[in-house]
């Protein structure tokens, strides 16, 4: 009985203590972040940007790849109406995308009827394959967009259903081959953002674990781990990336990778991510080094917390402020690195598009004789605004996470 009562008491205390836990660090931080207008605006903008980038195929944008050389080269920003598929060179029925789609669908429908009426299985198979091939090859979407995945394809179809031939005018002007910059900036955002996020996540995971473990354990482990970082630091990585680009661009390698379903680009950006973790790990280690002799770590150790628990439960949250500052510096670095590679001609290859590629085009069009300002200002503005927002958000998160800021303002 006695033990029963004891257990009850114990359980009650446990429940209570659980309730006392109250506002977590993160909850608290979120509350404080909400009071920071700059950070909240940045967050909203970034979320909006991400959503827009994901939904780009749904938006009534012009084609990002269709080049109108005859009439639309280097148009400054304007409000002139643009009809999807209206360029004479496309030879679309009615001069519209929907007209051509109707014509194409009618043709396919004819074939489908033919398919229905045939009974010979072999012939049926051939016909069905023919239809699939025609949709694959001759579909008018191929003229307007490059290599759509299934989701994007569906979104483009919805876009045509919703908006028909309407397209937002060239608010950002057009480039030297007569392509709409607004559309290109949006499609470019998809590539640039993915590059930034994926690569940074990779760097975050490696960097934080590495730095925290090295810093906490110290001694031989630290020395060995940090010397490895030093070694990697001293390698001019741009070289490695250039090699990888040429190596992965080789046909045989490319085919092998394709067969296992790995995109050349994917590996490439994983590599960038794997390069950028070095600074992160150093900073984390530095912070952990100065933190590990603090009292709360000592007390955690005295109550018998496992080293891993101390590292990831007590040290990592405490260095998170600095980690986030670095994070907000790393995403921009990666995005800038992508731009840098595009400048050297090693980035994504057309008709794919990224902000770096757009900026490189823009800089080429920037000469003293004539300044096509819109070609550099809009992609540059998009990139700068994104990086701006990331920075402000980072600042905000840092302030919000800092327990010492708790009772300020």
């Amino acid at each position: 009985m006695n033990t029963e009562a004891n257990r009850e008491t114990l359980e009650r205390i446990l429940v209570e203590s659980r309730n006392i836990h109250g506002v977590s660090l993160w909850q608290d931080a979120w509350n404080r972040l909400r009071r920071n207008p700059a950070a909240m605006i940045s967050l909203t903008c970034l979320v909006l940007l991400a959503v827009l980038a994901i939904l780009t195929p749904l938006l009534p944008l012009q084609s990002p790849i269709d080049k109108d050389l005859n009439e639309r080269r280097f148009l400054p920003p304007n409000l002139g109406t643009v009809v999807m598929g209206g360029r004479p060179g496309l030879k679309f029925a009615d001069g519209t995308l929907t007209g051509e789609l109707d014509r194409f669908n009618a043709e396919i429908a004819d074939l489908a009827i033919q398919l229905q009426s045939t009974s010979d299985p072999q012939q049926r198979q051939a016909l069905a394959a023919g239809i699939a091939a025609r949709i694959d090859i001759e579909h008018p979407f191929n003229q307007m967009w490059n290599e759509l995945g299934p989701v994007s394809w569906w979104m483009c179809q919805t876009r045509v259903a919703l908006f028909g031939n309407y397209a937002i005018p060239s608010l950002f002007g057009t480039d030297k081959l007569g392509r709409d910059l607004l559309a290109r900036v949006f499609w470019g955002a998809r590539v640039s953002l993915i590059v930034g996020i994926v690569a940074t996540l990779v760097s975050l995971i490696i960097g934080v674990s590495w730095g925290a473990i090295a810093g906490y354990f110290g001694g031989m482990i630290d020395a060995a781990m940090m010397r490895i970082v030093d070694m990697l630091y001293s390698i001019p990585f741009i070289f490695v990336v250039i090699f990888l680009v040429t190596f992965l661009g080789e046909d045989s390698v490319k085919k092998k990778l394709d067969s296992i379903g790995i995109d050349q680009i994917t590996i490439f950006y994983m590599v960038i991510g794997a390069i950028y973790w070095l600074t992160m790990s150093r900073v984390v280690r530095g912070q952990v080094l100065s933190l590990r002799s603090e009292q709360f770590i000592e007390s955690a150790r005295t109550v018998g917390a496992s080293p891993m628990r101390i590292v990831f439960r007590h040290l990592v949250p405490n260095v998170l402020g600095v980690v986030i500052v670095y994070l907000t510096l790393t995403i921009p670095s990666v995005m800038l690195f992508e731009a840098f590679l595009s400048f050297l001609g090693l980035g994504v290859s057309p008709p794919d598009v990224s902000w770096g590629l757009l900026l490189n085009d823009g800089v080429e069009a920037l000469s003293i004789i004539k300044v096509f300002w819109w070609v550099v200002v809009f992609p540059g503005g998009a990139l700068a605004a994104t990086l701006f927002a990331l920075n402000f958000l980072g600042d905000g998160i840092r302030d919000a996470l800092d327990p010492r800021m708790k009772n300020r303002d």
Partner: protein
Amino acid sequence: MPPEVRRGIVIFSCLVTLVAVIWAARMDYVPPAHFSLQNGTDPKTLDPHRATGQPESKIIFELFEGLLRMLPEGSPDPKTGLQPLTPQPGMATSYEVSEDGKTYTFHLRDGLVWTDGTPLTAHDFAWSWQRMLHPATACEYGYLISEVVLADEYHHSIVKVGDRVEVELWDRPGESSGSDANIQHFPRGTMKYGTLRAIIKPDQIVLPDSASDDARESAELDWQESWVYQIDVAPSDGSGNVDWDGPTTPEEFSVSAQVARDDSIQRTHGVMVDFQHFGGAQAVDDQTFVVRLNNAVPYFLNLVAYYPLFPVNRNCIETHGAPLWTKAENIVTNGPYMLQFRRLRDRIRVAKNPDYHNVDSVGMETIDFISLESQNTALNMYETGQIQWAYDLPTSVLEELKDRPDFHSAPKLSIYFYKLNHDVPPLDDIRVRQALSMAINRRQIVEEVSKGGQQPAYSVVPPGIAGYDNADGLHEDVARAKELLAEAGYPGGRGFPKISLLYNTSETHRPIAEVIQQQLQNNLNIKIELKNMEWGSFTETVQMEKYEMARYGWVGDYPDPNTFLDMWVTDNPQSNTNWSNLEYDGLIKAASTELDSTKRMQLLRQAETILANELPVIPIYFYTSAEMAKTNIEGFAPSAQDLHPLQILRYRSETPKE
């Protein structure tokens, strides 16, 4: 560490920084040259026998001078603005051509000297031509004078039994018979001359079928090295005089160290025909140089005025060795300018050569060849007056530049085209090739993309070669292209594999490739994948024939259709298309031996017609030059071969009074 030390170290590091800044701030200032020009990529070398590119040639034309020199003659063509250039006396004052066009006799000027003060004689030319042809020099222009007697045999080290040959023993400075080769092939080892009696070839090792190409090639070369040459050596003195009628001694030679281990066999660097004594380039005396050809070459004088045939200084090369002799402190030249200094990736400075025979005609005191790759930077520097001549301009502003008085544009003897690899299935079908070509709207490309006034090309020989009537090719015809594609088994583009279009990384090639990508997609539903590569890897990929479609350009080496046509004959190493047409080969061969100029041109035209119909390459456009030169420069005019003799340039205000 005590705080004082710490503070000391902080101060110390501040001092170090200060010293570093002061070190960095000391600049070796170079006053600007009299005349500066954009010279593209940094030149690889200044050795006339090793250079290949445009940037190198511009400099070499000023540093060296051949028997003849391309100089303006008459006034520019009023329509195109092209300044005709003709080969005019350079080191030679005059020349005679024999009736059959097979012998050229050049008479050198009196009192010619090198920049080191030694006299320049016909022997220098004989030696230079021999060096150029020597296989180890690896001059890529050796084929230019393959019609010179024995030149081709010498260049490719072809020997036959019965030939009079030279043998270079394995005793160049620093060599012993078992050692590795000294890669400096001048000065040469001990030379022996004689008549080749026999070549003893051991059995060739049969490699298994699984052996790689590299292994095969290597085995073949090993086998060739193990040949033993039996030669009746004629007596000769040390300086190369041979008594061919004297008593001969039979001796044996081999390249392989293993074979030559036997005392009776001497190790040699190679047995080659005796070009020095029997070749078609002989110095009769100090002032007379005679060239004998196997067949008449109508453009031979142009070749003589081309830089690979310029003389180089034997003493300089033999003293300093192959790459080092071109260093500013070593080089000895004979042209209107001499090398002052060379700063890698920055500039090459040349100054007027006071010993040049026609020094009074040389305008500029000093010239800077600035290594500048970026088009925008070049334009910026031109606009701020840091350079006076820019030849590679950004296309985005060409339209704005066109109307300025300092803009020059004229057709060039060169073509922009796409090579097709015939080993890749759909491209081996003539209908597919024709369809691709007919679906490309070249006019749009030249007018809206490249915009430099280029001419759409439907065949490969640029217009404007005197006496040649260009073949006409297949023009744009989308309807016919679709039919052809359907006939070839790809109706509406269905089933057509995705092919890749390879180009070298450049601000110019990408937009053109992108537009062609769109045109083929729009017109034929054919998907093209764009691939770009840096120049080095690009050429490698094309040469290994690992491409499907590849951009290429060709600049005429001499003003004759042959330079655009002879590379497409079967198995030409520069073709890389795997295209082969026996009729075409026959026509090119017939043309090369045809003496009558009109007939020859007709033969070439027939060949071009075949090419334009079969389309192993898809021509896109003929280049034009687009250059900016300051208006106060006199003597600047575009020329078809894109040659610009710089010594005739001068500033207007400085024109000597007449």
